[in-house]
């Protein structure tokens, strides 16, 4: 056994054990690690957004706009809407914070409305294209092999299952039933497949504890 001399490795190891202790049950050691995790992840978000959104996107663009107004005059500045209009983004964002004050909190609905509108617009097109049309295009296959037939029939029956305005009875119900089987195969197979990737994460942590930290493996 050759434990690592690096104090940082020890901290990482002790925190790893602390989180694992949750598997036995809730306890103060775990609570400490959890509290720390909540704090540092809040800090990590704070810093990441500060240096990747607020400074470059918001202040950066508004700064360029101010510079243009100063050096090239009002008209040139106004025509450069790609920069100065960021001030609106900033205002809408700031309104979000007003949620903290119940009296005027309702005004944050304006920013929420903008965000919801953006998502609705994006999703409408993106899902239609990549989840809809592209998938249909990939499923239009010549029925010349067992695999292709299964792909087309499976997708067909699965969609029948998702019909809401028709009762699942008779032949239609039979197709919907086949559709459920396909969905169940899908869910079972994805479960089995995901097991693999989750296990490799755990392997990584175990290797950290016994290898890098405690030096018991080599």
């Amino acid at each position, binding site marked *: 056994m050759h434990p690592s001399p690096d104090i940082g490795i020890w*901290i*990482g190891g002790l*925190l790893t054990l602390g989180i*694992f202790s*949750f598997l036995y049950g809730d306890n103060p050691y775990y*609570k400490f690690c959890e*509290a*720390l995790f909540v*704090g*540092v*992840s*809040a*800090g*990590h978000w704070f*810093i990441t957004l*500060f*240096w990747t*959104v607020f*400074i470059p996107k918001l202040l950066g*663009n508004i700064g360029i706009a101010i510079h243009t107004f100063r050096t090239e005059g009002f008209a040139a500045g106004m025509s450069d809407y790609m920069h100065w209009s*960021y001030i609106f*983004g*900033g205002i*809408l964002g700031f309104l*979000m*914070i007003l949620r*903290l004050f119940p009296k005027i909190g*309702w005004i944050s*609905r304006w920013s929420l*409305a*903008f965000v919801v*509108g*953006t998502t*609705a*617009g994006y999703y*409408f097109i993106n*899902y239609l294209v990549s*989840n809809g049309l592209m*998938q*249909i295009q990939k499923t239009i296959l010549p029925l010349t092999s067992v*695999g292709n037939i299964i*792909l087309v029939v*499976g*997708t067909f029956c*699965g969609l029948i299952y998702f019909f809401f305005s028709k009762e699942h009875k008779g032949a239609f119900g039979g197709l919907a039933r086949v559709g459920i*089987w396909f969905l*169940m*195969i*899908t*869910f*079972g*197979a*994805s479960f*089995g*497949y*995901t*097991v693999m990737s*989750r296990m490799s994460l*755990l392997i990584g*942590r175990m290797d950290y504890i016994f290898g890098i930290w405690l030096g018991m493996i080599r």
Partner: protein
Amino acid sequence: MRREVPLLITAIVGLTLIVVYFVPHPPFSDLRDLFSDWFGVIAAFAIYLGILSLLKINVDKVYRKKSGWGFSIVTIMGFLLFVSVGLYEGSDFGEYGTSYYYLYDRIYYPLMATMFAILAFFIGSASYRAFRARNLEATVLLLAAFFVMLGRVPIGYYLTSWLPEGFRMGSLADWIMDYPQTAGQRAVMIGIALGIVSTSLRVILGIERTFLGGE
């Protein structure tokens, strides 16, 4: 003001983004980038709002000495540590060799990775408890999971090594993934696409307005 303005904003923004998709000519082509940047800024403010709420709750706990206030101090200290080091390091805070990177690597990463790794344990207990052949559907689910898992481990290989290549457990697992699994997945995906299209439309038309809360 409280209801009409937000509904109008949603409708205008939503429709604009749909139109933008089809029109490459400026200024439409710029609006897409502009809106997504604004979106990023607003989302960042929303996350800051979350952080503020979190700090408020924890400071409150410490101030009133509620149960577990000691842990709240840990949370606040952790936050201050990362924020002060991150601000000090400047815009390349995340690069290899900075002290922020050290904190990230030795504190944040182990905590996060272990949280994820705990999932492996829950997968074990879920497969014990939930994967039971209760009825036909559950049996299909169980068998698919079983074959895919078996196809990825040496036991599966040894159990079927006497079969000709292409009929072994590994090939069966691949076949399940490639055909029936993909078929089911596509049905779900197309269904979700139609559902999202119709819900987005309801939002843009102002029919679905629960997100604004009650009056």
